[in-house]
């Protein structure tokens, strides 16, 4: 990766947006760097779409400023902003062909006919839409519509491209293909992408940086590795990927105690002699020889090809713990429903939270 991260191209500065009594965005600040693939991730109602609409100009913040390339655009009309939005519903113009849809944005810039048709042709080629150029949106499949919507926004060569749940309407297979396709395109055109999604997998796969939103605030902002491996709080830990939560307590000896085990976890900034919650990924729990570790019974085994997710009922938590076991290697033979097993934690990889 030789992405050149420069100064922030887009700065969101303590923005507040209320709808009646509900606070959609609550004093949120964010710096997006040039050429970055940035993901706004959060459950529905977390304010991510409102934030995107404020950046695009369809909502005006109650407080705070939004700057694009150093210029304040907080109150600028959407048609004046040098950024474009790809709509969740694609919002293709139904009465125009694919070619006309693409040309529309350039016609608004009052470019010459020859330049418009040259750029439309080029974009049709980049997005592999040449064969569909004369079709109307009603004659396109979901994936094709998605590509047209993307092409129509990209052709304007915006400083920043905003994507509102761009893959939400596609089926799983196509979605995975388009995730890589979007990433490739972003690399190719060198435009800053800000994507809104509720799908954590999508955010982790595509983005350079992810901001996790809840109730109009950012809980954590960092690379996919950071938010996955070092979640800042319990919500982020539970929202990203699969996570087991186990109640325990921190002793005076700076060890986390759970079910007779004492784990040397990172306890920085946490209170001693108090209860806490252990967050462990399925890959941070391993099967141990019987006798050692925590005893449990396998209640279910889910086959995932290269590995298996086993569900182990223990005395530690009401819900069974999810444990990942490699399909090849030790432990596979023992991983049968009903089997009694012993579990061990990778203390260094686990996180402890006190709420």
């Amino acid at each position, binding site marked *: 990766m030789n992405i050149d991260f420069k100064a922030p191209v887009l700065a969101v500065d303590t923005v507040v947006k209320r709808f009646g009594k509900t606070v959609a965005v609550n004093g949120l600040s964010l710096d997006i760097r040039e050429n970055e693939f940035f993901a706004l991730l959060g459950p529905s109602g977390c304010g991510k779409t409102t934030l995107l609409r404020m950046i695009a100009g*369809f909502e005006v913040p109650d407080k705070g400023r939004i700057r694009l390339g150093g210029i304040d655009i907080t109150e600028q009309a*959407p*048609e004046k902003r040098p950024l474009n*939005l790809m*709509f969740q519903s694609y*919002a293709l113009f139904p009465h125009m062909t694919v070619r006309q849809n693409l040309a529309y944005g350039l016609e608004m810039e009052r470019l010459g006919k020859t330049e418009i048709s040259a750029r439309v042709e080029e974009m049709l080629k980049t997005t592999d839409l040449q064969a569909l150029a004369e079709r109307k949106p009603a004659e396109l499949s979901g994936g094709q519509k998605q590509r047209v919507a993307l092409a129509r*926004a990209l052709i*304007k060569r915006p400083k920043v491209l905003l994507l509102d749940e761009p893959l939400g309407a596609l089926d799983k297979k196509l979605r995975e293909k388009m995730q890589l396709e979007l990433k490739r395109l972003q690399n190719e055109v060198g435009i800053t992408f800000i994507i809104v999604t509720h799908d954590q997998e999508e955010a982790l796969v595509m983005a350079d940086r992810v901001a996790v939103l809840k109730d109009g605030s950012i809980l954590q902002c960092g690379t996919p590795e950071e938010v996955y491996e070092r979640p800042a709080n319990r919500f982020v830990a539970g929202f990203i990927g699969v996570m087991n939560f186990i109640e325990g307590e921190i002793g005076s000896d700076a060890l986390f105690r759970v079910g007779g085990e004492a784990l040397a976890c990172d306890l920085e900034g946490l209170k001693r002699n108090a209860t806490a919650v252990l967050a462990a990924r399925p890959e941070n729990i391993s099967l141990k020889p019987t006798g050692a570790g925590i005893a449990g019974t396998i209640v279910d085994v889910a086959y995932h090809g290269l590995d298996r997710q086993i569900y182990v009922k223990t005395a530690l938590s009401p819900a069974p713990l999810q444990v990942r076991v490699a399909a090849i290697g030790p432990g596979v033979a023992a991983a049968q429903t009903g089997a009694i097993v012993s579990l061990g934690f990778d203390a260094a990889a686990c996180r402890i939270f006190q709420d």
Partner: protein
Amino acid sequence: MANALRIKLAGRTILVLVFGFLYLPIAVLVLLSFNQSGLPTTWSGFSLRWYVSLAGNSDILHAAWNTLVVAIFATLIATVLGTMLAIGMETRKRKSTPLEALAFAPMVIPDIVLAVALLTLFSRLNVTMGLHTIIVSHVIFDLAFVCSVVRARLKNFDFSIVEASRDLGASSFTTFWRITFPVLLPAVVAGALLAFTLSVDEFIIAFFTSGAGRSSITLPMQIYSMIRFGVTPEINALATIVMGVSAAALLISQWLNKEQMTR
């Protein structure tokens, strides 16, 4: 089984009788308008002579011209206003029930009530009545029909295309003319044709608001005054033409509505 068959048969019979009662007189009327002899009792061969004699009747031509003027102007005004009303009502964030009721009241208020009310209003304001008062009166109920047709289309209109247009650099004015209006056009035309049809064969309101004298008489009023001296083959011919025009406009209107729904 036999029972079910009998019920089905009875249903069919009732259906045929009802439709027969409705459409047989119309069919006979159309047929008689092409009858050589003027007698409704005997068929003496196909002829267009009643249509020819119609073309020579200056009273009828005058009334037809008036009807056309009223229908065209009322349709134009009602289409512009009705479309604007529909867009305004659908894009408002706050839905207003009183406004809805007001917009659609002319569709349900009996024509005679509307006619008397308008006549009272015009005479109270000392307005000289004529074609212009008929036009204003027709706009009132045409507006409600245009508005309801356009609103039906707006119910499944994807407003994000309006935002997409702004996002791509178009002003709200450009957006309206290049995006919103072309997408709504089939519904607007359908509404206009419906309004035109309603206006062409409207009798009561035109009768009340046309003022004294024969100068602003419309076709339905002309037919009414002719029929008092008996049904002549000429009336049959005239009614056939009016029906033809109305039916054509209505069919196109419905076809446009269907067309846009399947898109």
